């Protein structure tokens, strides 16, 4: 039983990261109906930019670990948001009125481009974040040792998720985002500048991915130029699991995916872990074709 709870916390910790990346996926999808395959690579860029800023500016030395990490996250969020904005302008906007899958291919091209750009800029070897930034103490919860960093990371994920939920559901801008997601034409008629909404979404989504990249770098220590592909796929899975386009759905999907992976590895087979989580996904979709929290869209008639 103790092992079960241990595995549950392991799963939730990973799931928090999946959820954070899935949020960016789902936001972009909600408004543009575009599967942004480059999202995982924006996450990678966030991790590498974070490392460069951290070591070149010596943030944690000047400001102390907590402030330093926050300052770092803010910088990365701004930079990756900017890259996301430029990506939308150059690679996706010209395709907005064509068939949906054209933009998917453009996104795949962007993914290849970013991945190789990271390789050429930072080299093909995995890089390592400095170790001494985050505290290594563990605290005991119900007799289990849980590293403090995991708890910090998980709560940061929750805070970011809530901030996003607040933004989309409680503010005027959020209302505009949701309006554009439901019907761009109608939103335009209501006086919403849809282009600005899309640009904003394309800043926020990748920025969250970038923030997740910094968190992964700080916590796991090791980052490599290919890691975005795997995280992107997992996040996409998580977003679909929860019902893509739905913000609470991405959170639930991410956490659930993490837990399924941990429990699948623990009780069935480690080697088949990913196959198990895909199988669960397929079974869930057979029962609920639009994911757990996805709206039941009636067929158009």
């Amino acid at each position: 039983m103790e092992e079960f709870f241990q595995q549950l916390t392991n799963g939730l910790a990973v799931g928090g990261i999946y959820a954070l990346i899935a949020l960016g996926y789902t936001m972009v999808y909600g408004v543009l109906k575009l599967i942004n395959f480059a999202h995982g690579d924006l996450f990678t860029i966030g991790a590498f930019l974070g490392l460069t800023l951290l070591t070149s500016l010596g943030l944690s030395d000047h400001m102390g670990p907590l402030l330093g990490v926050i300052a770092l996250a803010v910088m990365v969020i701004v930079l990756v948001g900017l890259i996301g904005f430029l990506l939308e302008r150059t690679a996706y906007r010209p395709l907005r009125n064509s068939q949906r899958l054209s933009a998917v291919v453009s996104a795949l091209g962007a993914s290849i481009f970013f991945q190789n750009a990271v390789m050429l800029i930072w080299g093909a070897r995995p890089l390592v974040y400095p170790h001494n930034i985050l505290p290594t103490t563990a605290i005991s919860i119900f007799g289990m040792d849980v590293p403090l960093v995991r708890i910090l990371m998980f709560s940061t994920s929750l805070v970011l998720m809530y901030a996003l939920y607040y933004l989309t559901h409680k503010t005027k801008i959020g209302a505009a985002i949701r309006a554009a997601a439901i019907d761009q034409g109608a939103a335009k008629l209501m006086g919403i500048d849809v282009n600005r909404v899309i640009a904003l979404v394309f800043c926020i989504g990748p920025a969250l991915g970038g923030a997740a990249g910094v968190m992964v770098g700080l916590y796991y220590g090791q980052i490599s130029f290919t890691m975005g592909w795997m995280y992107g796929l997992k996040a996409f899975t998580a977003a679909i699991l929860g019902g893509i386009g739905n913000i609470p759905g991405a959170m639930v999907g991410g956490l659930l995916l993490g837990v399924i992976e941990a429990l699948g590895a623990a009780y069935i087979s480690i080697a088949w872990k990913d196959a198990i989580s895909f199988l669960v996904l397929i079974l869930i979709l057979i029962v609920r074709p639009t994911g757990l929290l996805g709206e039941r869209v009636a067929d158009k008639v």
Partner: protein
Amino acid sequence: MMNMRTLLLFAVCLLLLALPQFLNPYWTDVFNNIGLYTVLALSLNIILGHAGLFHMGHAAFYAVGAYTTAILNTQFGVPVLYTMPLAGLLAAVFAMVVARPIIHLRGDYLLIVTIGIVEIVRIALVNDVFGLTGGANGIFGIARPMVFGFKLKKPEHFFYLIWGFCLLTIFFMHRLENSRFGRALNFIKEDDVAAEGSGIDTAYYKLIAFVLGAFWAGMTGTIYAAKMTIISPEAFSFWESVVLFTIVILGGMGSIRGVLVGSFLIIGLPEIFRDLAEWRMLVFGLAMMLMMIFRTQGLIPPPPRKYDVLAYLKEAAGAVGGGRA
């Protein structure tokens, strides 16, 4: 007009026939890969291009075919090319079993499920499922195929096998496009509710599209296994499916000529960029984006279907008029 096209077709075929004489083995092999991907992409085109089903797991069916051939040949000594129908059949049965419960999923939900299927297949292969697939090492020592007592060995031999099969596929796909089945699929792509309303059993047609596409991909798997003589799970990763998906979309969904040009570009460009060494994939990614931006509907989108409505009406009116007289 028709004559011009036939003539052009003949000229292209002749050119193909003569091509290996002018190319070194490397470029012949590049053409082989292009041909292989063309056939695979054409088989995906039935599902993705004609029926409009978001399918990003085609490598799974291709893998089933290739592994069928490899196992039959290395374990039971069945000559490679004889395994081709069975490879196709097994892939088709596999497609039927996995596609049946998911066929009603919409758009992106289907996309992730097909990704899931290709990943499950790859993981199964790596884990040496049933002790038959050889795990990560794969299966080696697949015999070279014999055609009328002649052993296919060199790239130029395979060139004729692959492009012969490719021409056959193009012919078949062309017939399919203009068949009742092909038209029904296009209807489903444009509006599946209306198609359902017009009496088309959409679930059935979608399933048949999957099965047919898988059958063809499975047969291509045989050729791949024969050409490489060793197969391993890396060759059937999710990325392969992405490449095929890209070829179909970039070429222009549902267009045979588009798929041909698409595979020339997607498979050929990285080879042309070889001199760029580690820069080559960066340039390739950029090229992919640019091509899509400048041709948003794909390189050669299929022409809209044309029906001579007036003639049809006249004929119908004539029939009615004739009845009256």
